């Protein structure tokens, strides 16, 4: 890698502040070189690459579908930019940017069938949009307005999971439930239920969590129809991938006794092909499968993060030509003669969508705290009922005070009441 000019205006991190300099290098003598190739169906210029195993999985893909992928990726990117600026304006409590990971997310989500189920981590905004969840709804959690933003029961998509890796065993259990459905149906002589698989997202950092390891063991023990989709974006906040693993994560699958595939996570065609294949394997009882999508987080970990403190801008520049939007644009131009006017049209319609979405996001307000008492338990609970009474009584005391104020306009006002007003 040739260091390129630092354009950030800030000094480059130097040893020992460069996290990579102090991290494991993967060069330990016991490290076995991975023989797993990285599946790619597009090169960096957007030219097709043939792969005898995976190309057939996207044979049906025409111009329209590729345009839809491009449109989805652009929407995700513009939404991400808007959300980042909304956070800077104090309208969001936090935002984890996805910039750079659009292909890994859009293409993997588009591989899902109607019976499949998704367990996201917390950065899968493009996946959520692909699941048909409105952007305004998706934002409510990051606005600090709701605990989570959509109903799993209506979307076949679990809520975001911020305890790293904690959702992975849930996905395995859900997949075990799919096979349990089949066993119970067979036991009772009923028709087999429709085939289904689970797609679970996590990252290179979360891959170190013990629960992810246990998930792999359980998934293998029970032949669970689950696809582990790890987006390796190279950085777990400030810790580089080399600290998490000496080997590509997909090579770990072999240790659990199932197949792992490395895919160029910035190549939407390859991600779509590999995920379609993996979900089919899982649905047909040949799972689990692990996919490692090698990508790069072009932005910060979250809006609270500052990547200039731990990584070089030349690394970001190295990944710039692999930008999934750029490559897909190149593909559309090269293969279908798509013209600037078409791209401008997509940009314009996305801008309109962003404008309307922004208004929708800002229109909402937070849930009443009192409603939170309703959801702690699924059934009546005397402790919650009692403490809800305390809350109500305290809040109501300000209403009485307010009534007193009406009689005596110069009287003191309760702080809580002012906050409510």
């Amino acid at each position, binding site marked *: 890698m040739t260091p390129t000019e630092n354009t950030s205006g800030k000094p480059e991190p130097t040893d020992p502040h460069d996290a990579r300099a102090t991290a494991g290098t993967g060069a330990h003598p016991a490290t076995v070189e991975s023989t797993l190739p990285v599946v790619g169906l597009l090169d960096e210029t957007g030219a097709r690459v043939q792969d005898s195993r995976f190309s057939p999985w996207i044979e049906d893909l025409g111009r329209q579908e590729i345009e839809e992928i491009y449109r989805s990726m652009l929407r995700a990117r513009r939404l991400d930019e808007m959300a980042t600026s909304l956070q800077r304006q104090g309208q969001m409590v936090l935002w984890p940017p996805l910039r750079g990971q659009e292909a890994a997310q859009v293409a993997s989500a588009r591989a899902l069938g109607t019976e499949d189920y998704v367990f996201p981590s917390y950065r899968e905004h493009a996946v959520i949009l692909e699941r048909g969840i409105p952007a305004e709804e998706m934002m409510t959690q990051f606005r600090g307005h709701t605990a*989570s933003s959509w109903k*799993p029961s209506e979307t076949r998509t679990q809520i975001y999971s911020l305890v790293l890796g*904690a959702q992975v*065993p849930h996905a*395995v259990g859900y997949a075990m439930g799919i096979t*349990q459905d089949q066993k*119970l149906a067979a036991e009772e002589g009923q028709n087999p239920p429709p085939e289904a698989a689970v797609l679970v997202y996590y990252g290179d950092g979360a891959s170190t969590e*013990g629960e992810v390891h246990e998930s792999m063991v*359980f998934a293998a023990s029970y032949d669970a129809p689950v696809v582990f989709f790890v987006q390796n974006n190279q950085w777990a906040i400030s810790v580089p991938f080399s600290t998490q693993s000496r080997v590509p994560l997909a090579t770990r699958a072999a240790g659990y006794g199932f197949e792992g595939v490395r895919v160029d996570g910035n190549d939407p065609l390859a991600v779509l092909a590999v995920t379609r294949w993996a979900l089919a394997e899982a649905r047909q009882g040949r799972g689990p499968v692990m996919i490692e999508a090698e990508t790069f987080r072009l932005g910060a970990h979250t809006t609270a993060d500052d990547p200039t403190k731990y990584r070089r801008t030349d690394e970001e520049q190295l990944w710039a030509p692999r930008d999934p939007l750029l490559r897909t644009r190149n593909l559309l131009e090269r293969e279908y003669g798509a013209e600037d006017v078409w791209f401008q049209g997509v940009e314009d319609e996305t801008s309109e969508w962003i404008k309307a979405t922004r208004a929708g996001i800002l229109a909402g307000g937070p849930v009443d705290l009192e409603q939170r008492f309703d959801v702690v338990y*699924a059934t009546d609970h005397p402790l919650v009922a009692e403490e809800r009474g305390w809350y109500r009584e305290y809040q109501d005391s300000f209403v009485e005070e307010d009534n007193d104020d009406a009689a005596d306009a110069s009287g003191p006002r309760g702080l809580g009441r002012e906050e409510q007003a």
Partner: protein
Amino acid sequence: MSDTKESTLRTTMAKALTLGMRRAMSEDRSVLLMGEDIGSLGGVYRVTEGLKADFGAHRVRDTPLGEAGIVGTAIGMAMRGYRPVCEIQFDGFTFPAFNQITTQLAKMHARTNGDVAVPVTIRIPNGGVIGSVEHHSESPEALFAHTAGLRIVTPSTPQDAYWMIQQSIACPDPVIFLEPKRRYWLKGEVNLLQPNTPDPFSAQVVREGEQLTLVAWGPLVPVAMAAAEAASQDGRSVEVVDLRSLSPVDFDTLEASVNHTGRMVIAHEAPVFGGLGGEIASRITDRCFYSLEAPVQRVGGYHLPYPPAGVEEEYVPDLDRILDAIDRAFAY
């Protein structure tokens, strides 16, 4: 069952639990068991003995050895519509699953704004005085009681064991089901037709008295009953309440009892500091301040890791230490 001869059964707490789970599994095919060694072996305490043979390996699942995996996959199965019953082998081995229990299982209903219920029951052989090695004798109930979203129950008799395990499995909320392991072989009558209370999340007065309310649960209920009997020989009339539900706590029953007796002693095996007894003492003091003749007294484990088996009987409250606490309450 109409034949009254078959309406009661004398059996051990362990067997009552087995029977209760067998019935729950027969009545609801979404119920399944998960845990280490629970299949062919029947669990290290044999509580699931025979169930794999009757219901199959897909409903009595010997899991790989990973507590977080057991609870984490159980949550996923519950999301799919199942009612998993997890067995954690010993109380001290709950902690590898603690993240899944407290950040996931407990909070899932609230985190999904009420959209996803996770009716998972986690059975944990609980408490000490079994003469074992470290991590096999702990009483972690306060850690779970502090976590909103969980329910915690613990039976002290075969009758409650038989019914409360079924009621826990049927509950739409996650339930931590603490089994007093030193009482697994305690025998008693089980009424197969009717539970003691339709609501398992309630306390029961198991001995009536006039001068002091003694609260205990799980393994200490028999000790509390013996202490009340011993106190009566000293002319003290002690009412014993089996708390049964540790979250929620049935404060109404406790309040009514203390308003009647004027004194309260709480006994538990867990360390006193930060223990459930402190919360009960505080709330009962609030509710019964003008009825109390003395501060609420607590007796429990010391602020130590559970000690070696050779000295555990000095650590866990026994009859004499409970009587000592009763003396303290009467000293005011």
